[in-house]
């Protein structure tokens, strides 16, 4: 069962902080520990920064996933930017603009449990899920 | 060892004054800068008076510059080459296709 929790628009750099905060609060509510909260917040940072830097405008969506035995936080980053031409390329380590800081989409993928990306010239949707540890 | 690049521009002529060594480490920065100038200016001259070492990577850069200048119908020339640097142009036959003016220390 999915339940939409909230949605945060990304328009300016400051919104990245707002998205982090919102994500962290939901993570805390759903019972994630402090490391996972920090990971979720960092993943949101990356996703929101990508929107802010490359698409200018977009939004981050939060959903609760009820499953047995764990609870999931599903985060969807959506924009109408120019899209990513070669997804497999940006998913390669060392490719990201982070300059070897391990960030970028591969970093997000590692921080979370599930990762999916769809990109066309009409925009990009990145969906990630983190499950509570049992 | 480093390569230092000074540039002087007036109207259509640009001069790049190089000092140091041109090798595999310094060639990329030189290439980027030089090709940009060759595209932009009608005449580009490279002063090699203070270049005491150049290896074959450097030749590659100047050949690229020559080709680019031909495509852009601009002038490209090298001035004030030291003897050992000129030797490379002489051996490779590039002195016949690249405009070279003045070699220092007597030249060849």
């Amino acid at each position, binding site marked *: 069962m999915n339940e939409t929790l909230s949605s945060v628009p990304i328009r300016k750099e400051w919104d990245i902080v707002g998205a982090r905060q919102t994500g962290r609060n939901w993570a805390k509510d759903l019972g994630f*520990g*402090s*490391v996972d909260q*920090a*990971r979720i*917040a*960092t993943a949101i940072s990356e996703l929101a920064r990508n929107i802010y830097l490359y698409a200018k405008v977009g939004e981050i969506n939060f959903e609760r996933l009820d499953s047995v035995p764990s609870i999931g936080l599903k985060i969807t980053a959506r924009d109408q930017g120019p899209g990513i031409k070669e997804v497999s390329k940006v998913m390669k*380590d*060392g490719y990201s603009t982070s300059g*070897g*800081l*391990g*960030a970028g989409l*591969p*970093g997000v993928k*590692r*921080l979370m449990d599930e990762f999916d990306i769809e990109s066309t010239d009409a925009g990009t949707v990145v969906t990630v899920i983190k499950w509570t*540890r049992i | 060892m480093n390569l230092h690049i000074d540039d002087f521009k007036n109207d259509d002529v640009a001069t790049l004054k190089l000092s140091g060594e041109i090798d*595999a480490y310094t060639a990329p920065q030189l290439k980027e800068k030089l090709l940009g100038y060759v595209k932009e200016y009608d005449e580009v001259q490279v002063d090699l008076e203070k270049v005491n*070492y150049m*290896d*074959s*990577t450097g*030749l*590659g850069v100047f*050949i*690229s510059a*020559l*080709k680019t200048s031909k495509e852009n119908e601009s002038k490209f020339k090298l001035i004030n080459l030291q003897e*050992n640097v000129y030797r490379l142009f002489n*051996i*490779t*036959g*590039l002195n*016949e*296709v690249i405009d070279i003016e003045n070699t220092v220390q007597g030249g060849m």
Partner: protein
Amino acid sequence: MGSTKSGKQDYKQLLMEYLETGDESVLYRAEQFSKNSIQQSISPDEIVNEHYQSLLDIIPDMDDRIKSSFQFLIETMISYGMAYQEYHVLREKQIELRSEIGVAANMQDTLLKTQVPQVDSLDIGVKSVAAKEMNGDYHHFIIDDKGNIGIAIADVIGKGIPAAFCMSMIKYALESFSENQIFPKYILDSINRVVERNVKEGMFVTMFYGFYDVDTNYFHYASAGHEPGFILRKESHEFEEIDAKGLLLGVESEVTYEEKFTQIEKDDIIVLFTDGVTECRYGDRFIEQEEVLDVIKSFSHLPAQEIVDSVYKYFERLQDFELRDDFTIAVLKRIK
């Protein structure tokens, strides 16, 4: 990812022991623990969290500000963790790449293999060593049905894998000449067209091509911007430069190369090399060409292969066994 329950227990156990005893042996075990964690690719933020969780158990009435400070530290460590994970992946990839390059280098050796011709009148020796894994130098022998010998020595400007591709192309172009076409001028004219047409901007080739006529003992040669060769004359015991002017390959599409020839007497030695030999330097000092020639001369009484091996060893030592450039030298000694 994620640490095991027992890992957490271990950490808490170690920490408690250390707080009680302050013993060095506990610190040593902590070192083992961290090595173990690295092997299991447990990231730094996990360790900080374990520390925090253990502390909460050990000191239940911890100050709230200290608790918050741990949250802060964990956040700060997350990026280190990400960089660490990436490093891990990249390192594995590097190992993989390295082995692939090794395979490519082997394949290059196989593809570019050339047999040193065995003829009565000449003693021939060659030494070619790559500075990195892929060799940017190339040499090739052709022998026709009369036993005449063609030798090509080339240096690709722009090293590494692209150079290796370029060289395979040159080799197959060289092999496609029929046996009565192996005259230097003709070969360089044609190879130049092949290189100019097929090689991307930024890569150039210098080549020396020689043809030894075993009937007349004339050595015919042409050079496409290559380092000049030398003949050590038996009679004068002096080197004579053999150079033919010519533009390096791949710069212009139509170039006509100059061909020269010279008579080779018995016990004369023809020496050909790439600039890895004449441009080798140690420390800040370049080796003068004369020094190179002196070294060659000092070994000239030896059989051809021993000459090139000895010259190589000499310069290898001079450069502290670290070649800066590919090194190729070929020696042809007329023995009959």
